[in-house]
């Protein structure tokens, strides 16, 4: 290990303590990009990679004195340093290829560990694959990393390898083109792994939480409407910081996601792209890379918990909106069903309904009808249908849960189960053609589901079930809805397709689309604390 002379360290933050700095402070300056910072467990040093002539070096920045040292500067690229919990080791990815592919390559990008005090690296993995973005487990016994080692397609899985040495073990892999689980980060209590995830050419990077005991059980913290990656946990486990971009942003920025409610906010890091945040061990500061100077340099800033503005339901003008119809079946209805929205859309019970356990059933062919319901004249605007349902049993028939009938469009919009037991929501084109969104799965029997179905103002119809946006959406649903003739729950407007085996707990209709909090908050809490 040697002192690095060609960099200038700007120690503005050092003597003061990062927490006193109101603005991001530049920690490094010099030629080449300084990226992928990782704070040591005792807070005294930051490891990072430095792009230099001939490859990437591993460097350490001493936070007290501002001294920079090179930990490794051999041939090739040393990337993505991560500290062991005891601060004695740094694991990193190393790649050094000097021949053509035809001439033969023995190793690709593999993991090495090096003493943080300096010394010889030890090879942890080998083979012609790409092992990268490692992190230590909380007990320091193993290392989690991303790798192509099990892939036949361009895909990346999550693996672990014992720190003492041994064979890597696959944790999760979906070997399809462009499906990648990257940048694992273990939660402070060790129960969850946050990671970046992408699935397909047209998707966006998302931050997901997976259960450490079974990484196939996962919850997406971010949605395709933004691109997010590089998650890191705050030491208290209450926040995840990540790199993010949302349309309207000037470029990449540092976002924080609050747990367990899932609220998101972009931190003010100043001009330029800000990426790859890392927490100080006390959670009081974040270090990140920013390119405002022309190259990426490291900056730190105090972390002050931002006020998360709830992204609630909004109408076309961005105003918060409430339901125009709201039924709750916690109590059995009589001849009518009270409309809790205050709009006056009380439902008339037609025929016989089953009631009990906070839900109504339609087994006997009964329905709930609202003639000429108010507030369902959405025009070409957005609207949302939300429902809490349980499918007690499947049939092999089509079952209408809700249908709204309009003068020239008797099937204006519908929520229903198809013959295969998948849930659908549909709207219509101006030509009155069907446009639908479908659940990714056959609805499980006996499980209460929270359903959000909506058409946005661009004509896209979407379906969210238990906080998960379903893959199959529809576009072009720009039918202009006039005043409705009828809203019916439990069967088709003309009486057919009875919703046998379906229990309805709650039902709402409103203009606008649901906000992020509504889509994910409760479900995230259930995922974190089942």
């Amino acid at each position, binding site marked *: 290990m040697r002192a690095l002379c060609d960099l200038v360290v700007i120690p503005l933050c050092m003597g003061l303590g990062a927490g006193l700095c109101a603005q991001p402070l530049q920690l490094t300056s010099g030629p080449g990009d300084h990226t992928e910072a990782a704070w040591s467990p005792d807070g005294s040093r930051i490891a990072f990679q430095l792009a230099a002539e001939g490859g*990437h070096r591993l460097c350490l920045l001493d936070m007290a004195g501002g001294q920079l040292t090179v930990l490794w500067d051999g041939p090739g*690229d040393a*990337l*993505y340093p991560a500290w062991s919990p005891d601060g004695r080791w740094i694991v990193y*990815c190393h*790649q050094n*290829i000097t021949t*053509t*592919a*035809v*001439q033969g*390559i023995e190793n*690709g*990008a593999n993991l090495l560990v090096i003493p943080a005090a300096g010394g010889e690296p030890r090879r942890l993995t080998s083979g*012609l*694959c*790409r092992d*990268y*973005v490692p992190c230590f487990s909380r007990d320091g016994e193993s290392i989690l990393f991303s790798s*192509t080692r099990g*892939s*036949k*397609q*361009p*895909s*990346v899985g999550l693996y672990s390898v014992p720190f003492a040495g041994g064979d890597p073990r696959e944790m999760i892999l979906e070997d399809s*083109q*462009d*499906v*990648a689980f*990257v*940048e694992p980060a273990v939660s402070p209590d060790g129960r969850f792994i946050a990671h970046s995830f*992408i699935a397909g*050419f*047209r*998707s*966006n*990077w998302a931050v997901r939480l997976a259960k450490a005991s079974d990484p196939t059980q996962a919850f997406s913290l971010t949605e*395709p*409407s*933004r*691109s997010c*990656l*590089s998650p890191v946990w705050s030491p208290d486990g209450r926040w995840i910081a990540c790199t993010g*971009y949302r*349309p309207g*942003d*000037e*470029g*990449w920025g540092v976002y924080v996601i609050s747990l367990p409610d899932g609220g998101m906010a972009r931190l003010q890091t100043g001009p330029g*792209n800000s990426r790859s945040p890392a927490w100080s061990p006390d959670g009081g500061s974040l270090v990140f890379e920013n390119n405002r100077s022309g190259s990426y340099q490291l900056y730190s800033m105090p972390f002050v918990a931002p006020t998360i503005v709830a992204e609630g339901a909004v109408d076309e003008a961005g105003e918060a909106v409430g339901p125009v119809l709201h039924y709750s079946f916690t109590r059995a209805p009589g001849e009518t069903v009270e409309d809790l929205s205050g709009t006056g859309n009380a439902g008339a019970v037609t025929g016989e309904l089953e009631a009990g356990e906070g839900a109504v059933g339609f087994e006997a062919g009964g329905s709930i009808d609202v003639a000429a319901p108010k507030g369902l004249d959405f025009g070409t605007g957005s609207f949302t249908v939300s429902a809490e349902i349980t499918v007690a049993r499947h049939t092999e028939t089509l079952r209408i849960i809700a249908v709204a009938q309009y003068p020239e469009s008797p099937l204006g919009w519908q929520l229903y189960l198809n013959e295969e037991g998948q849930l659908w929501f549909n709207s219509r084109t101006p030509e009155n053609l069907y446009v639908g969104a479908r659940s990714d799965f056959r609805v499980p029997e006996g499980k209460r589901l929270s359903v959000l179905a909506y058409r*946005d103002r*661009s*004509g*896209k119809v979407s379906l969210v079930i238990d906080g998960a946006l379903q893959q199959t959406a529809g*576009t*072009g649903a*720009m039918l202009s809805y006039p005043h409705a003739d009828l809203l019916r729950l439990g069967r088709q407007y003309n009486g057919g397709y009875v919703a046998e085996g379906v229990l309805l707990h709650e039902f709402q209709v409103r203009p606008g689309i649901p906000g992020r909090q509504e889509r994910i908050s409760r479900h995230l809490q259930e995922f974190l604390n089942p």
Partner: protein
Amino acid sequence: MNAPALFSTMAAALLLLSTLAQSQEAKRFEVAAWVDHFDFAYIPRDGVALFDTETVEGNSKVLDHVQEVGATTILWRNCAGSTMRYQSEVESHHQDAPLDKRRVPDSRPGWGWMRYGETEPDILGSAMEMCRDRGLRRGVHWPFEETHWATWTIGRWNMEHPQFWGRTADGQPWWGRVSLGHPEAVEHKLALVDELLERGIETLYIDTWRVGGWSPAYEYVDPVVEAFERQYGQAPPASPADPRWCRHVAGYVTDFLRQVRERLDASGRKIDLMVGVQDIAPIDEEVALRRGIDWTAWVDEEIIDTLVVINVRWDGEDPFGSTRRLYREVLDRVSGRCRVLLPVQAYDFSHLGMPSYQKATELGQDEVAKRLMRMAWEEGADGVSLECVDYNNYSAATRVALKALAEGECRWVQDN
């Protein structure tokens, strides 16, 4: 006739012959072969790769193989998507994963480890030199915007500038794919043009078929939307197939090509701008516009030197007859305002290439190739385009047949 008079007459005759020859030389029927060395990169025989495409020697063997079709022009591939296959200073390279963790690596054996960005000497420069030394017209095949359906083709500049990504009507950004509606994105691509010019190209061939998923559906970005609102006084239609929206978006592609033209002209050299379009006949503007393409505008404005027809939508009931009618329709529409190359296409992504002709006619590939090339020549095209000359996808018999026509019957452009 005295000696001086005889000498003078002979000199005049020689000059006339020379002029005629030059005139004919200028009208050599062109056989333009698209070449991607990457497609030769992993062809093992008895455990040994036939071509080491990271070396000059390997690429020389690639060129040997390609020349067996009688190629007069080489259109060498410079990129995959926005990753470059030469030492680009402007963009990143195929092998940059995992240096950039945002890119999902190409994990395929062989192909995944190609390091074209580090090969000495520069691959594209050396390929152009080889073409020059062999008397071939040298060009670059540059697929329009983002090609392929894989994230390993996304370049660093695009990843670094999410604010320029394409966006759907409902606001979803398209990871890593920039919109030509942003002047910064256009300027970046023009910087790539400069790099190509530095490598001695004579032809820049931009292929608009290989658009990946690019389409008007992803052009709902602020500058394009605002321009639409200014022009029409209303928000753009949500349907990306709306003819007004498609025409509006196509204007950005045309403007991009206009700027490429200016950049080529500013080099002080005569650089041909070729542009390839597919499925353009029967001439159906709406179909083309749905891809954000308005090729007739490029011809009318004389932005391009050569129109490359990648394929035509022929009729399975009358494969060659309908093909001929479509060729005529294109040539009539162009009416000599630019050169036209017609397809002898080995690829069959659109089910309009030679494999589909073979299926429809039960003829061998060599016979189909001969008929298509001869038809292009008879109709007065300036040449044919071969997409793509990979290892043995034009069979040995086809290569012999094409070369025989190129150097014999079809050597000179028909003067119709």
